[in-house]
């Protein structure tokens, strides 16, 4: 079932792979170097800022600063980092789609980013609505702490799987058996 799902997506990746702009980026001498370097530097900004936000939610750090102040102080930097990080990530994918298509770690990372987005949306839609009641508490309510721990774990996972994308051969046997590469 997983194999057929990926086979359904293959034509899209092959279509992008053949686009002149994708080929041009792929064949650029230093394009990938600049993109990956900017991706890693912006990762430091995104992960560093989000770690402090999550550590405030979990009560691990910055416990004396109101939650809303942490958010208003850090989130503009987070958004700037996300724009650069996601932008460079997207262009890397666009320039080498058939490199990432069969990569286990790439899809693992995308799955975790999806869960992170859902976790953030759930926090925003539900838990954050009552933030006025607990934002000065050194330890946030259980639901907020759980959202923070989930986010911390998933961001750590995103960093690990992002690094492991370079090791496309170190993957489970069942993934190799899908024969995507």
């Amino acid at each position, binding site marked *: 079932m997983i194999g057929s799902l990926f086979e359904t997506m293959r034509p899209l990746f092959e279509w992008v792979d053949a686009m002149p702009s994708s080929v041009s980026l792929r064949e650029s001498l230093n394009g990938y170097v600049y993109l990956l370097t900017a991706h890693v530097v912006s990762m430091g900004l995104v992960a560093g800022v989000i770690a402090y936000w999550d550590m405030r939610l979990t009560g691990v750090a910055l416990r004396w600063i109101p939650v809303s102040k942490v958010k208003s102080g850090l989130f503009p930097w987070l958004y700037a980092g996300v724009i650069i990080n996601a932008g460079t990530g997207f262009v890397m994918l666009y320039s080498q789609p058939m490199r990432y298509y069969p990569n286990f770690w790439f899809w693992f990372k995308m799955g975790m980013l999806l869960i992170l987005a859902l976790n953030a949306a759930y926090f925003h839609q539900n838990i954050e609505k009552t933030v006025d009641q607990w934002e000065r508490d050194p330890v946030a309510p259980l639901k907020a702490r759980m959202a923070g721990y989930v986010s911390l774990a998933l961001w750590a996972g995103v960093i690990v799987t992002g*690094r492991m994308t370079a090791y496309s051969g170190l993957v489970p046997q069942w993934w190799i058996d899908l024969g995507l590469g």
Partner: protein
Amino acid sequence: MLQPFFQWMGELGFSAYFLNSVWPTPILQCIHLLAVAVFAGAVLVVDLRLLGRGLTWASIPDLARAAQPWLVWSFVVLVLTGIPQMTSTALKQYYSPFFWWKMEALFVGVVVTFVIRRIITSKEEGHFGPVWPKVVGVTSIALWTSVTIGARLIGLLS
């Protein structure tokens, strides 16, 4: 001058173990990158505050004190996980201009962050005037960005 020393490091059994094993190096790289994230956060929250941005609700000394353990311990992890990566490819590092770029920026970064910035952040805002904290904040961000760029380019262009 240092070439024999790097050759000696590369020939250590410890280096050969990391070079020839499958999983230890990727695991070290992942831990190294996680420590980069923690270190970047600890550096940034204080540097941004020195620039009058970020967590302006908190005082500079309070924020610096809160970030200090994360800064120190993530740096310890960075060094511990960085050494085997360096020794296992010692001669590659020696001949890479980006390795030396990284080391120079790292040395100055350590002095700026752990010595000069520590002095600046030990006093309340205004003690050193409006300019010096900003100079230190910008310098610190620039140096650690430079370290990250140099590190990434060792792998990509060496």
